[in-house]
């Protein structure tokens, strides 16, 4: 079956187009996914910075009650899984989960080891390095951002903290967001790509198949039928038309068939003459 002209013409095109379209869609999905995740991280890092800036005044005034209430309110939002503020020693000072307050965290856990993996902890991290993904105790997939809270001249002036030169970092804000909206967007993107990919494949392969059938396969089939008919002496058969090369072959076939018929008729006449 693969030796037929149709298979030889259609299989390579189908294979090449299908493979390349699927490859293109896989790479495009990977690009889009990475862009979407990077955008989400940038957006969430911006939100974490906004929280740090908006709670700055409460910190400056040492208004712990207001600060805890702000953290609780932020943590009560649907997409926020947790919010906590650590001091420099890694002890939770404020948290959306009151049970976590005064608990210490291991510096080698994810989210801490990005800065604490060397002898001297890093004080500055890029936006992408501030993010981590994990599954929390409730089984939810979480994208968390750890934002440093830097010491400022105004913080040291309030006599709560040492001067900026001696102490650059006061603590960190850790906020975790549910990845459900991100996953929903990615699923939607994947479905759209699959639909688009299928449509492109149907159009391309279907179009190529239809054109080949109309312009090549059908005329060849007609030519084969015509050649079979002519070889049996049926000179009145309808010849395939419309394609120059096929017309040339039809002309050659007709010429040969006419010559053959003429020779046969001549031979027959000679035989009859001899018999007479």
């Amino acid at each position, binding site marked *: 079956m*693969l030796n037929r002209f149709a298979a*030889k013409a259609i299989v*390579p095109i189908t294979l*090449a187009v299908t*493979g*390349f379209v699927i490859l293109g869609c896989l*790479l495009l999905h*990977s*690009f889009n996914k990475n862009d979407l995740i990077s955008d989400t991280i940038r957006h969430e890092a911006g939100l974490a910075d906004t929280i740090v800036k908006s709670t700055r005044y409460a910190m400056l005034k040492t208004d712990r009650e207001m600060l805890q209430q702000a953290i609780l309110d932020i943590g009560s939002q649907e997409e926020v899984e947790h919010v906590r503020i650590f001091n420099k020693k890694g002890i939770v000072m404020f948290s959306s989960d009151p049970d976590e307050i005064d608990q210490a965290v291991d510096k080698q856990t994810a989210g801490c080891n990005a800065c604490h993996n060397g002898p001297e902890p890093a004080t500055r991290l890029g936006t992408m390095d501030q993010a981590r993904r994990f599954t929390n105790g409730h089984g939810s997939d979480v994208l968390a951002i750890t934002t440093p809270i830097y010491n400022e001249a105004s913080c040291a002036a309030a006599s709560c903290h040492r001067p900026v030169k001696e102490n650059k970092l006061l603590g960190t804000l850790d906020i975790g967001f549910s990845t459900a909206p991100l996953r929903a967007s990615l699923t939607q993107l994947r479905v759209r790509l699959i639909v688009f990919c299928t449509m492109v494949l149907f159009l391309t392969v279907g179009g190529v198949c239809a054109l080949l059938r109309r312009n090549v396969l059908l005329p060849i089939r007609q030519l084969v039928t015509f050649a079979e008919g002519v070889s049996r002496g049926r000179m009145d058969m309808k010849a395939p038309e419309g394609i120059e090369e096929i017309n040339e072959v039809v002309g050659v076939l007709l010429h040969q068939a006419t010559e053959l018929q003429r020779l046969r008729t001549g031979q027959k006449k000679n035989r009859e003459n001899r018999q007479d």
Partner: protein
Amino acid sequence: MHWKRHIDEQAEQTLSRSPEEAEARIRSYSARARMGQWGLFAFLVLSMVAFRFGSLFFLLPEDLRTILGPAPPVRLMSIALAVYAFSALIYILARMMGEDRNYHGWAQLFYLAGFYIFFSYANSLHENFWAILVAGLTILGLEHFRLWSQCQEVIRRERQILAKFDRSSRKLPSEGD
């Protein structure tokens, strides 16, 4: 009509002059037609190894990683994969028009292994594994089909020659009788 003369000359050159030669050619081209299957099989084994042990690259000692240097950006590697797949497919389709009956899949296998190694070194093989697999199956599948169909043409021609030899050898004794 230069192309037609060229094809006729090539066909003349490839015709066998004895039944033994025709049989040997059929055997040789049958074996060659199966080379693509071995290439695909080797690629599937390579992919399974990459899928199972690809992440081991991430466990390389820090000193060795420092010597090797940082991995190229994943985005650039993905673009390189797309460009490679596109050019390899065009190259195979172009070879389909000619009479090249050599298998070129081993070089492709080498390039694909390179992509597995680089993505693995950049610790992003998990995300890009299916893309490399699809690229490899398409390229090696098309190369297999190209070689198989071209070898089948030669085999068909040699079988016709063999049948001619067979007919003429049957005729000779009857003429002698």
